């Protein structure tokens, strides 16, 4: 039986972070990635063809997000060194192969992790991933060298990954992130 509109939305919202991330890898802009996710959602709801399974919907969503991203880059005439289609396919397949949690749960975990992150590190993350600055621009604003920025970002991503994993495992045992 084809997925109804509510089921489509529930599934896309659950996978929102990963679908947006697939778009982000192409456009490297979180705001555009969010817009692309919304476009994918609207297309899924207004599309003439139905989705017979969750896997079919997700596969379509990842491919559409990537295509939307590439189209946007073309429209913007931006020169972004993109990844080969084979790599993008692999990334999409691996994203779909792993079970996903509700987007809100992971964001709540990230929020708790960020609260324990030093202010200057948060500022770097914000400059890079929200304000859309390049690492060179972030280095200038923070008054540190470019190599130090890459090193800091590398450490930060790894620390956040471990922290989020721990929070999610803890939540699994306790039944929730907050009492």
């Amino acid at each position, binding site marked *: 039986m084809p997925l109804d*509109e*509510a089921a489509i*939305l*529930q599934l*896309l*919202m659950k996978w929102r*972070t*990963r679908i*947006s*991330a*697939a778009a*982000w*890898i192409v456009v*490297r802009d*979180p*705001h555009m*990635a*969010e*817009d692309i996710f*919304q476009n994918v*959602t*609207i297309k899924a*709801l207004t599309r003439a063809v139905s989705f017979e399974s969750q896997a079919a919907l997700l596969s379509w969503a990842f491919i559409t997000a990537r295509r939307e991203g590439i189209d946007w880059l073309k429209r913007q005439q931006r020169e*972004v*060194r993109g*990844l*080969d289609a*084979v*790599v993008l396919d*692999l*990334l999409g397949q*691996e*994203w779909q192969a792993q079970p996903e949690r*509700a*987007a*809100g749960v*992971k*964001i709540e975990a*990230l*929020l708790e992790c*960020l609260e324990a992150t030093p202010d200057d590190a948060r500022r770097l*993350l*914000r400059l*890079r*991933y*929200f304000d859309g600055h*390049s*690492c*060179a621009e972030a280095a200038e604003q923070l008054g540190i060298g470019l*190599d130090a920025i*890459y*090193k800091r*970002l*590398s450490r930060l*991503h*790894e620390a*956040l*990954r471990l922290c989020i994993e721990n929070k999610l495992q803890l939540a699994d045992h306790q039944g929730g992130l*907050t009492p």
Partner: protein
Amino acid sequence: MSLDRVQTELLLRFLDGAVTQAEQRQVEAWLQADAEVRAFLREVAEQAVMIGDVERTAISCQEALLAPGSGGSRRQPGVPQPAGSWLTMTRVWRVALAVSISALLTMSAFAYWATSRPSVALVTDVSGASQYFSSTGRSEHAVQTGMTVVAGDTLESRSCDASITLVLLDATTLTMAGQTAIRVLRPEQELQRFDLPHGSLWVSPSRASGHQRLSVRTPAAVVQAGGAQFSVQTSQAESIVRVNHGVALVTTLRDGRTIAVPADYQVQVSLAGSDACQAVPQPHPVGTWTCSLLKGPEVSLGQWLAPTESAAMRLAAAPLLWPIPDRDPVLLHVVAIAVWKNSERPVLLKDGSRIQFRGRIDRPQAVRFGFVAQKMRGVFAGKFELDVSPKELGPAGETWQVELPLSRFRPLASQWATAPEGLELTDLYALTIAADAGLEINHVELLPPEAAVDSGLGGSPAAVHSPR
């Protein structure tokens, strides 16, 4: 992950667009051959998206706090229905009435509807002060139960403890909370349209299939749904849409973006700021709430007084004419506070919770305390009230403080919830009836069960006065 730092830093430089062609080839080769490298890239991308979400949300909250006229501190198209024939519409209308309060539908009301211009909805319940402005410019004193509504009509609930319930042709129920205005617009392309300039509206579809699409336009957004259960709370600059069942599409008027909001999600749309809105999970409720009585939009009714040494915030009761069927209206003096505009999270009424009011009256007179509640992630659930005698309040002219357990409040209408426990608090009010007793309120708070203070009065009255 077993990547070395050289690999991760080169990947980050690649994402930064700062690699040479040789380095690009190196990155591509790693990514094709090594699942660990791809896992790192996926992780960075997910973190980037989530950091964007977190920062956007933080900015939206700040802007909502700063925006004048905003909410202060703080939310699919269905299957289009073919144009129904007159017979079809009549049948649907009957279904609608069968699932609403059928006793309210008299043959005369139905005949009136059948002989007038196409009606959009039937008013099935009215409580409190209200106003009706017809599409022809005629103004009625109050909205009446049993009246039909056509395109161009405007309904307004004029006090915080008022409510109006409408049933649409497809049996969808619209419930207007207090201090809410709604204008019925002409349907377009089988889309039933409403204007909601201010206030709170709950939309609850019937269980029957074949829902009509409807849209609700606020000053900040347009909400479209077919068969979804959702609520809209709006001020002149900000709207919150919370979806509890089904899917709603929310289009922001600021930038024209459309956001799909599924069940258990909400979206907050503000005219202020420049950041994109997004659907987020509805927040967990809290069991406590304190009103700082800032001079802001959370005050629905009242007049500010100059501060004194003992009370920095003084909100005096404002006059309000209260209609009573077949009798002269009664003059009330009311202080009303919109809790939903003052809390980022839903405020849950728990078994054993108490509502604390601090204030004073100039003349000894009973004060009626009340609140409005909705089902948690649901629809309007009713109003609850309690009269406190002047003896319980203490001497006139002195500051008193009462802690009122929920169990003392009585439900105002039998068709709504009979007990407040488990409901979400949306509005609070205090009033005096007829004579102006000089009521003023200085502080309001919802106390959790464990934080309730022993009144020392043996537990029964649970209302204490503490002259200052």
